[in-house]
């Protein structure tokens, strides 16, 4: 755990083809008040090519991309403005199908 007065630490897990461009699991330190948007600002700096797989435009996710915060799709929280807390688990999925 980090100093939660100034920073938070979140765990980010990637799956399927996203692992071609980023680590399967990393810990990311972010300032207090961070959101999914600021998380990606950090991740895009670290991983070339990730942004193109996740975003269709500056504020638009690609179709069928899913981002979960602690098991809940951010689509039903605050989307890119979803607030992050220390210890959160973020899971990133590219378009998937199956059954």
């Amino acid at each position, binding site marked *: 755990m980090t100093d939660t007065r100034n920073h938070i630490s979140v765990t980010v*897990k990637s*799956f*399927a*083809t996203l*692992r071609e461009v980023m680590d*399967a699991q990393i810990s990311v330190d972010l300032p207090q008040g961070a959101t999914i948007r600021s998380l990606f600002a950090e991740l895009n700096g670290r991983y070339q090519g990730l942004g193109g797989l996740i975003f269709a435009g500056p504020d638009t996710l*690609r*179709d*069928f*991309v*899913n981002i*979960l915060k*602690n*098991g*809940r*799709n951010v*689509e*039903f929280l605050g989307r890119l403005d979803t607030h992050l807390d220390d210890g959160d688990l973020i*899971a990133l*999925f*590219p*378009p*998937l*199908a*199956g*059954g």
Partner: protein
Amino acid sequence: MDGYAGKMAYADLSAGTVTIKPTPPELKKLYIGGRGFGIRLLTDMVDPKIEPLSEKNVLVYAAGPLTGTGIPLGSRYEVSTVSPLTGTAMSANSGGVFGWKMKKAGFDAIVITGKSKKPVYLLLDNGKAELRDAAHLWGKTTGQTTDALEEELKDKSVRVSCIGPAGEKLVLFACIINERTRAAGRGGVGAVMGSKNLKAIAARGDLPLKVADEAQLALVKERVKKKIEENGIDKALHNFGTAVLVNIINENYVLPTRNFQTAHFPDAENVSGETMAKTILKRPKGCYACIVQCGRVCEFDDEKGEGPEYEPIWAFGPDCGINDLKMVARANNICNEYGLDAISAPATIACLMEMAEKGYIKHPIRFGDAKGMLKLVEQIAKREEIGDELAEGSFRFATKYGHPELSMSSKKQELPAYDPRGIQGYGLATATSVRGGDHVYGYMISPEILGAPEKLDPFVTTGKAQWVKTFQDLTSAIDASGMCLFTSFALGPEDYADLLSATTGMKITAAELLKVGERIWNLQKLYNIKRGFGRKDDTLPARLLNEPLKEGAPAGQVWRREEMLDEYYTLRGWDREGTPTKEKQKELGLA
């Protein structure tokens, strides 16, 4: 009409005869093919009062007009019958190459009635059909049977759809396997085949398959190919197979674990598609005309096989508390060889595991015991020792020992790999499925978890009834057309309608396509009602309605049936008991 082989074979096993007749135009128009053909023929021919394993049951193989005409993912065929597991009007779907070969051999459908005195197989051969002795095949596995028929017919191009020992032994969830590893998996269609002493159907031929408008079909084919490639699903399915779902379902906290006691498996990564790709995967493989290739050829140690797919991975893995992918793959291979449904078999074992752990039955098996699980799979297939009781399915087994609540089934068919407590619309789809516990009769996982065609909140019940109805109707039509259901992640009703119009010349609209699907759905429902099904059966195990999930985002939730069921019935034009009204029957041409 084009797109059809033009003939159907009627095999009367009691008389030992095969009659060939033209495929009726009215059947094509109202039911398209595949599941539509099977359910119409079945419900016309079989008295609802019969026992499914009696000689009075009928088994229908049917391909669709889009099967085998070179359309991407147009490979499927359906096997329809009255299920010995559920008692419902059942259809089970399979891919591979067999459906195409059946049509190249000259047949849109095969209708099998009666019971042979001795084991036989049916040979479809360039427009001819004949029954042949199969005494030498009885007792053989599906792979051995296929090898023997290729050898006997001196033809490697022959395609074989057959049962294994489980079908012969009338295991209530025995399946039918074509090309050694592709399964018409659910509902015990293999047991019905076994009850008729029919070991296999072998198809070969090279008859032409015409389409109505080749130029138009080429345009539509190009359009659907582009849509499939551009929506991104094909890459994940190609690279990781259907097992790519393990992690996303687990991360949503809806991966049923240890017989649905929880919905999160800490070791999910060990049995995931990502791990498979790095370890036991040899190469991807596709069905006829497939551009996705989600099939998995896996090899390790002394083991070779295809799969496991997502559902068996879940059922032999997390649902049995097992985190060893190789053991899961071995169990899946046994199911393919013996001809067992690789959902119901492991889900029934998971039921036994919970009963044994709770002391409701004296048996050494426990969750996580992979070796014990493998032994049980073989015992079920051979009906040996406790396997003889498990071969009746989890509901009958658990009921026999006084704990029906531990069978995770609906209409006596074991539920698939998703916990409805955290996916409300999926729960409604599986509870109302006209074939019993199921995921492919209306795949609500797509909008509620995968976000396609749009993201629906899985915790919400509002609006789900309409989505479920639309998905169920569309799926019925896709199953009738001969297309793979996976195309529905990328295609909409208008795409299937355009493919059918160009192929058959029928000029069908998207609305008419959905109407065909609705007709098939209602026909199955009406038949089930005659067999005693009603509102009481459109439900899920008590655990899912009463015991809240404990972990992750859906913690505290149960499946909320009553918030959706009446709305669903109303949208369907059914009364409060779930019976289609006279007006609805008339509208669909079923009155």
